[in-house]
Each structure stands twice: as structure tokens, then as C-alpha cells.
């Protein structure tokens, strides 16, 4: 492939940037919906990738081929939620909104492809398929990965907000080591073949096949 490796990276990277934008936008939008306009005032209630890009996490690492990345986190201020929204409720709702948006985006694209395929098989050119597939798989993986209950992922915030008090000491004890766990999870598949992401990936591929009919 030679010079094509960068092309391959970009076919992966552009959907990643767009999906991350949707993800961060969902955090900001849900917070706004619950009454917290912190993110909006910082200009993060936006689908524009330029508002969310983190130079290292979104640009350099993914383009260098490191299999993960991040965008600038959207700040949430629970004190600004509406009065009828509990602080914990608001926190896990806003945290879950990001992954949920990715899942919805994947389903939406799959549905779109499905409809296009059912109208006419030639409506969606074959050229677009790798991109669409990347979009769907990437979004499913993003949703799954972010819902892992490991700080600082979104899943941990959900857990943080709804965990019963009796489990809290154990949870707090785990938090300081979460970074190692996270790095382990990301690199374990390469070393051991035990791929945590294989299942959502398969599920996403099934979704793609289902969509194409």
C-alpha cells in the first residue's frame, strides 16, 4: 500500500472527528436541556469539529495510528441544572447523552443505508461503503467504549451518579488506578487476543450487513 497508509488513516480519522463532535455536542445539548448553559457559553453547544478538537487527542494520536483519542471535554456544572432536575440525575443523563448520541448516529446511518438499499441497490455507490461502515462501527465502538465504567470515561460518570452509598468506598478506591486499567484494556487485545471490543464490533458489522440487506 505504501503511500496509502495515510489515506487509510484519514478514512478512519474523518469519521472519528465528526463522531466525536456529535458526542461532545450531545453532552452540551443535554446539559442545556437540563438547564445548565455552561457549555453553551463556552461555545461548545456546536457540531463544529473545530470547537471540540484537542490537538493531541484528536489530531496527532489517531493520525499516528494510536487506536484511541479524545476531544476536549465539555464542562458540566450540576449547580446550574433546573430545580426539578436532581443533580445526580442530571449528571448521569448528560454523561450518558454522549455515548447515546453515537449509538443513535450509528442506527440512523444504518437506517439510512437500509432505506437507500431497499429503494434501489445502486443508489448508494460502492465507493461510499467503506466510509459508511467505518461510521457505523466507529460509533458503536465509541458508545461501547465510553460506557465502560472506568474514569474518566462517560460510563464512570454514570456510575458515579447512581452508585449506592454502600459501594462508594470501593468505587473511590478503584478510581486512582483507573488509568492503568484503561491503558491495559486498550493494549490487552493486541497482546493476548482477548478483545473486549470484538463483540460490539461484530454487532456493528451485523448492523451494516442488515442495513445492506
Amino acid at each position, binding site marked *: *500500500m*505504501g*503511500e*496509502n497508509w*495515510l*489515506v*487509510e*488513516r*484519514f*478514512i478512519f480519522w*474523518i*469519521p472519528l*472527528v*465528526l463522531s466525536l463532535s456529535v458526542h461532545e455536542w450531545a453532552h452540551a445539548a443535554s446539559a442545556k436541556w437540563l438547564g445548565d448553559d455552561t457549555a453553551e457559553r463556552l461555545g461548545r453547544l*456546536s*457540531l*463544529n*469539529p*473545530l*470547537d471540540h478538537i484537542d*490537538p493531541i487527542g484528536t*489530531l496527532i494520536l489517531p*493520525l499516528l495510528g494510536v487506536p484511541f483519542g479524545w476531544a476536549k471535554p465539555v464542562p458540566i456544572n450540576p449547580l446550574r441544572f433546573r430545580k426539578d432536575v436532581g443533580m445526580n440525575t442530571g449528571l448521569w443523563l448528560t454523561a450518558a447523552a454522549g455515548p447515546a448520541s453515537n449509538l443513535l448516529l450509528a442506527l440512523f446511518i444504518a437506517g439510512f443505508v437500509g432505506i437507500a438499499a431497499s429503494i434501489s441497490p445502486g443508489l448508494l455507490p*460502492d*465507493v*461510499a461503503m*467503506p*466510509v459508511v461502515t467505518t461510521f457505523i462501527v466507529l460509533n458503536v465502538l465509541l458508545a461501547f467504549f465510553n460506557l465502560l465504567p472506568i474514569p474518566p470515561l462517560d460510563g464512570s460518570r454514570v456510575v458515579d451518579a447512581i452508585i449506592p452509598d454502600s459501594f462508594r468506598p470501593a468505587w473511590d478506591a478503584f478510581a486512582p488506578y483507573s488509568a492503568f486499567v484503561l491503558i491495559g484494556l486498550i493494549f490487552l487485545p493486541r497482546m493476548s487476543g482477548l478483545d473486549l471490543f470484538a463483540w460490539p464490533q461484530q454487532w456493528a458489522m451485523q448492523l451494516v450487513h442488515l442495513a445492506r440487506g
Partner: protein
Amino acid sequence: MKKLNTAFVWALLLVLVMFFAWNRQSDNPAVPFAQFLADVAEEKVAGIVTDGKTLTVTTRQGELYTTRGVLDAAIFEKLSEQGVVVNYETSALTGWISFLIPVVLLLAFLVYFLRKSQAKTTNILSLRRSPHREISEADSQVTFADVGGCENAKEELGDVIDFLKAPQRWLDAGVRLPRGVLLEGPPGCGKTLLARAVAGETNAKFFLVSGSEFVEMFVGVGAARVRDLFETAVKKAPSVVFIDELDAVGRRRGSGIGSSHDEREQTLNQLLVCLDGFKRNDRVVVLAATNRPDVLDTALVRPGRIDRRIRVPELNEAARVEVLKIQTRGKPIDSVDLQEIARLAAGFSGARLENLCNEAALLAVRRSKREANSVRITREDFVRAMGTDLGQDQRFNKLDSLLIESATQLAEPTGTARVRLSLLDGTTVQGDVVWADAAFLKIRNSNGDPDLVVAKRQVQQLEVLPGTDAAALDELQVDRWAMRSSETV
């Protein structure tokens, strides 16, 4: 940099990703290298294009496919036996585009973010760099011809310029030219302009810095900046270092509340050391300007440092004429006697004269707009501009109406005083004086118009008409103001 529109970014990225996908798709089908070897063995291959790693193979059936592998000697021999054409080249167009676009994009993004982050943070090390601006001969539009008056200063500075241009004659004569020249004089008399003219006249490098730019919040920064400035100046000699508002750093040490100002004094100490530091042939001259020479530290102005003091005095009439000539250069002047204007503008500094000419031109443009003819600057424009400069408002204001209301007609003339007033706004009022006080005149017009109150400061010229009683004339002339006005302003 203006942020790109969301829809535009999405469209751009989506188009790009489709382009990449299409680019990849358009590649010929890849087959295993073994398949290629088999094809070679079966003599199916017609031609090969290779870049060393990837082979693009044309079969005798006219099919195209790619494969990855290296043509070793054995295969190559076999191929040449079969008469297969092997071309070594990179697949020009798509190869380059698919390679360049990502790289360019990546660089663009990197540059964008670098700029963004640079704008945010001030590097602590950059504080130590001198804040001077370097002015080259070409940048400076000002020469001595643009400086009116200051003949003395020009002559002395001419020596300095000559020293920088051709030092040999001066060195041969054993002349030690001043290391530093201090231009002192009241504000607006052309100290900075002279310095800029030096920049325009000499071919030496010209470093412009203001005294206040050295001193920073942190002690030591100012000294570091002075060092940096002089290092640069010596490196690029011959050069002129111009320190404007020298009193900002050169203030006498140990003065002021609390008796010390560490940062400023350290900056000054460094400046003193640097002034001593040039060797005799360094050809670096320090020009400094201040309007407070009295507060300067004595060590700064001792011989060997900034020892030549050039006074840039207030302009005399001849100098004012010259300045006016320079300032009206290129302006559509309507045969104005500049000599007269210069006489009227007694005590005006150069900056004020410049302002005067600008104001006159502005008024002329305004007038030409009203009268819909071409712009000519007349004597009246200058006179009115001078009124503006002196803070004379030609309109009535609230205070005026108050004063008129309370005016007590104290100065009712004993007889008829018939006058014609030319006002600064260009109109003329003619009639009898009803009353006059310190600030106003009430004029009654003969043809039945309502009485008119005129402020004396609106009046440009007062003309006594025939029909005025001798007693009233006396009164008008006793009034000092009226005396002055009865001359041609």
C-alpha cells in the same frame, strides 16, 4: 483567524473522506505475489510498472492488477526472456495527490493550533527580548527636509549621520563623536520627528524603542531588554538606537516615594553600562529624547555617555513658516499668506501646526461639500481652524444662553454705534449695537429682523461703519477686545 462554519467543515470533511475512499477504490485489484509468480511462469504477463514495492501488472489479456513484492534477479531474468517491459516509476498523479493531501492537511492543522496556542501564552523568555522596532531607510518616509526649523539640531545630527556614513575623516582627526545625543525640548517640537528623520537620512540601522517599554513587572527584565537591544545594535552596526521618552528609565536614582524602584534603577544601571560599553569604532549612536531633562540621572548625561545635548526649542516665526510650508505640501492651498498664518500662530509647536493644517484642510473639504465645488484651502479655513485649535467653539452652547439670559446690558453705548461683523462661520452681520458686555454684542438690524446676539469670540473682524457717533466709537475703542478686532484680526 475566523472560525469556519459548521456546515462547511462537515461538508469539507465528508467530501474529503469520500475522495479518499474513491481514491482507494480506484486502485487495481490486489492479488497475492504467488499468483503473480504463477502468471510469470505461465507467460501471461505483458508489462509491469513498479515503484520498487508495488507492481502494477498488465496481463496479455489486457487485465490490470497490483501485487506487493520485489522483483529479484531470477524473476527479472525470466521477464526479460519473455520480453516483458518493466518500467520503474511512481504512479504519478494519484500517488502524489493521495500522499500530499493528508500531509498538507496535517501541516495546516498543526500550524493553526500552534498559532492558536502561541497567541494565548506569553513565553517568559520572550520577556527578556528587547521590544524595539527596527526601521530601515526604506521604511522611513521622513527626512530632514520634512523637519521645519530646528536648524541647530539638524546640523548637529548631520555630524552624527556623517560619522555613521563615513567615519574615517572623523577618526583621522581624532574626534570622539558623542556616544549619545539627547534631544530635549518642550512637547511637540519635533524631537521624535528629528529622530525619525535621522533614520531616513542615514543608511545605518535604526532601532526605535520607548523608555517605558523597558520597565516590566519583574525585576531584571528591563536590564535584560537593554542588553538585548545593545547586543543587537552592536551586531548590526553602524546603527542608531533611539530611546524615546528617556525620562521613563533615566530618572534620577533614589528619588521618589519609598526612595527606590528596583526594576527601573536596575534598568538604568544596565543602560549606563551599555553606554560605556561600545568600543571606539563600534559606530553605535544613542539618540534619546525627553521633555524632562531636569529629572535625568546625572550619570546618564555625564561626558562619555549621553553627553551631547541638543535643544529642540519652540519654533520661531521663520521656523513656523517652514513647518507650514512642509505641512501644506500637497494640499490644495488657495494663495494663503503662510507668513501671516505663522505670525497668527504664535507659540504653536510643530505638532500643533500640523494639526492646524489638517484642521484647515478638513474644514475646506466640509465647505467644498456644502458648496459643491472643488476643495481649496483658504485663509479663512486657517483662521477658523486656529479657532478650533484654541478651543473656540463657533456655535452657541448652553453656557452662552445662560450668559445671554443674565446679560444686563451694562454697556449700552451712549450713541449710535454702527458696525459690520464678519463672523468665523463666514457670515456677515451688520447693524447698530444695542448693548455689549464682556462676551456678547446685541446687534439690531436696520431692515426689521429680530435682534441678534453675537458672541465676541465668534467675531473674526469688526468694522466700524460711517454713522457711528464719536462717543460710541470711543467706547468701542476703549474695549480692548474691540481694539484688537478692529485690526484685521
